[in-house]
């Protein structure tokens, strides 16, 4: 399959590094408004052509799949153009800035019979998949509640809180945190289903250009409840996912490799804490070595979910199957994101 990519900065490198590893995928061209950025990406990843105009690229290259890896405000026109050119689209999160734009994109995808995959990459991390295996096998029982908590220092002067130039994410309702809502929402959706109601709390704790730097929410969903959070002040950086099931609890840090399970065990009740503790110690020890190993391996690191998602998407598209992130999922996750936004900003 022939792929093309629009937006050659930051996250694009992860997409290109993954595509280089995929059999049967050829990246025909890359496009960026900055000629040097496009040319550097082409040079680095051995891509034959680069463009600064996405229309010219779509016209000349006729790609099967287009990756949209630009800042969120441009996702809608670029993804729409790519769908119009007959390509499947893989778009970075959030797929659009408003629900109305997303519905138009979904309509265009359905009418064209093309995939529109929003990057819900953390659903495909090794740890998330292992927890899902426990649940799907029936060993864990039903999910009761899921917690997702991102602790990430975004207050530094070189990123979202740059005092010299407004970061593109700050144009979104909720500011920088809005950039992370699709991660939180997609995890909630995957474990407890479509939401029925959501109760967000947005606040500002530190002095910075960010409109908000703290976020909490409680979500009532089809199959259980979720609590979602983002903190710019809680340290160290971590992405905690805790899943509470009827017979098992799992905890993982998605930025690393730590994954531990607590189970309802058979045998003498007083020994359960000891047995669970020993198992947890073993898992943490393995994960500590695993984290270092992962860093040294030169692989995707905490983007292993993105690589897995792209691998699954291309496999599905090549065989005419359903991609791992379907249109219904994209829509329902976006609806939850919409419900989580600050009240004054919901579209």
């Amino acid at each position: 399959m022939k792929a093309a990519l629009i937006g050659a900065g930051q996250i694009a490198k992860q997409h290109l590094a993954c595509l280089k590893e995929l059999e049967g995928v050829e990246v025909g061209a890359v496009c960026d408004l900055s000629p040097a950025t496009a040319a550097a990406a082409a040079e680095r990843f051995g891509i034959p052509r680069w463009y600064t105009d996405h229309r010219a690229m779509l016209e000349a290259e006729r790609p099967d799949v287009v990756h949209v890896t630009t800042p969120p405000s441009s996702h809608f026109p670029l993804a729409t153009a790519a769908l119009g050119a007959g390509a499947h689209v893989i778009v970075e999160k959030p797929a659009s800035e408003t629900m109305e734009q997303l519905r138009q994109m979904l309509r265009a995808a359905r009418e064209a019979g093309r995939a529109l995959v929003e990057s819900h990459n953390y659903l495909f991390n090794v740890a998330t998949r292992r927890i899902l295996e426990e649940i799907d096998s029936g060993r864990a029982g039903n999910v009761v509640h899921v917690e997702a908590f991102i602790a990430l220092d975004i207050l530094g002067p070189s990123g979202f809180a740059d005092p010299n130039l407004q970061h593109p994410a700050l144009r979104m309702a909720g500011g920088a945190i809005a950039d992370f809502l699709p991660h939180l929402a997609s995890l909630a959706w995957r474990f407890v289903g479509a939401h029925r109601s959501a109760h967000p709390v947005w606040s500002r704790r530190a002095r910075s250009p960010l409109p908000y730097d703290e976020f909490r929410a409680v979500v009532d969903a089809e199959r259980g409840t979720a609590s979602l959070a983002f903190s710019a002040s809680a340290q160290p950086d971590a992405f905690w996912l805790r899943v509470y099931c009827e017979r098992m609890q799992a905890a993982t840090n998605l930025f690393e490799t730590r994954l531990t399970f607590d189970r309802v065990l058979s045998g003498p009740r007083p020994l359960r804490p000891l047995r669970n503790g020993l198992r947890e110690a073993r898992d943490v020890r393995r994960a500590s070595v695993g984290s270092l190993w992962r860093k040294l391996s030169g692989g995707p690191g905490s983007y292993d979910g993105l690589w897995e998602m792209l691998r699954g998407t291309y496999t599905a598209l090549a065989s005419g199957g359903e991609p791992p992130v379907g249109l219904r999922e994209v829509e329902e996750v976006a609806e939850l994101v919409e419900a989580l936004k600050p009240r004054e900003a919901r579209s």
Partner: protein
Amino acid sequence: MRVLVTGANGFLGRHVVSALLARGHAVRAMVRPAASIDALGWPPSVEVFRADLRGGPLEAAFEGVGALVHLAAAVSGGEDAQFAATVGGTERLLSAMAASRTRRLVFCSSFSVYDWSRIDGTLDEDSPLQRAPDLYERDGYAIAKSWQERIVREAAARHGWDLVVLRPGWIWGREHGFLFGLGQRFGSVHLVFGPTTRLPLTHVENCASLFALCVDAPAASGRTYNVVDSDRIRIWRYLGDHLRRSQERGLRLPLPYRLGLTVARVAQATSRWIFDGKGKLPGVLVPCRFEARFKPLRFPTRTERELGWTPPLSYEECLERTYGPPAVAAAPPALTESERPADPPMTTPERAGVPGRAAAS
């Protein structure tokens, strides 16, 4: 001549501003919107233009400008952020220059653009530059500076600009006494790979004086120069002077350069073997990065022969400027009469600290 200086409040930039003023030029200093410039002590004649190269209009910065001294580059942050700021910012700056009447550009490149692995014995202006694919083994700074020089040269050729490329060696000065080419620091222990290795030192005030000279030196047009005061100072001495004068506590542990490079090569080979060619190592264990920091070379320059430039300050004077009591204001090196620019300064100065017209935000 009115000279536009980007990165004007940076470590080198503030001294370039002083050196330009000393040569009688009018200076328009471009600084970022949130930059604090009060402590720089610029005279009211310095026109401050506030803008971020990554966004906002830049065309007005070139009004009435005879030459651009482009120093701005990101020196920290991730690889992508450095590329976006250094290369993306330069693209926008060059577009604005192309729409102006400014034709002279003095560009600050770096020793990091050289392919140190392919250079033996002597590194000079004709030494090979780092190219793909090996370029992408280097750190984010080297990648960004290589691409920055590349697009500056392309733009200059396309628009027929009068380009001078200056590649400073290791720039040192007050609060910048420790250099990454001195060794690997572990707490207070300094592993010195090759204690007798010569350093391509340029003190920030000496370096700035050459930038100021190149703004209107006819002989510099179209030329590329490495900026090195002299390569007579070796790592062991410099690090000793630094530790003593800065009163930092530290132990120097001398190690053969070849031993360090061999360890890096073995580490890389092992990593590639284990991880099927894809392993990732700390920078000091990547051989090409190790060589770019520590390789023992000579660093001759042609600035004296072609431009008649010799560093105004001796090493001992530079030590005093770096570690001695701070001067009241950054005193630029004195000029001889023959060094003064022929053109009288032409400017309608605004007060320092007043935001520039277009990009004030």
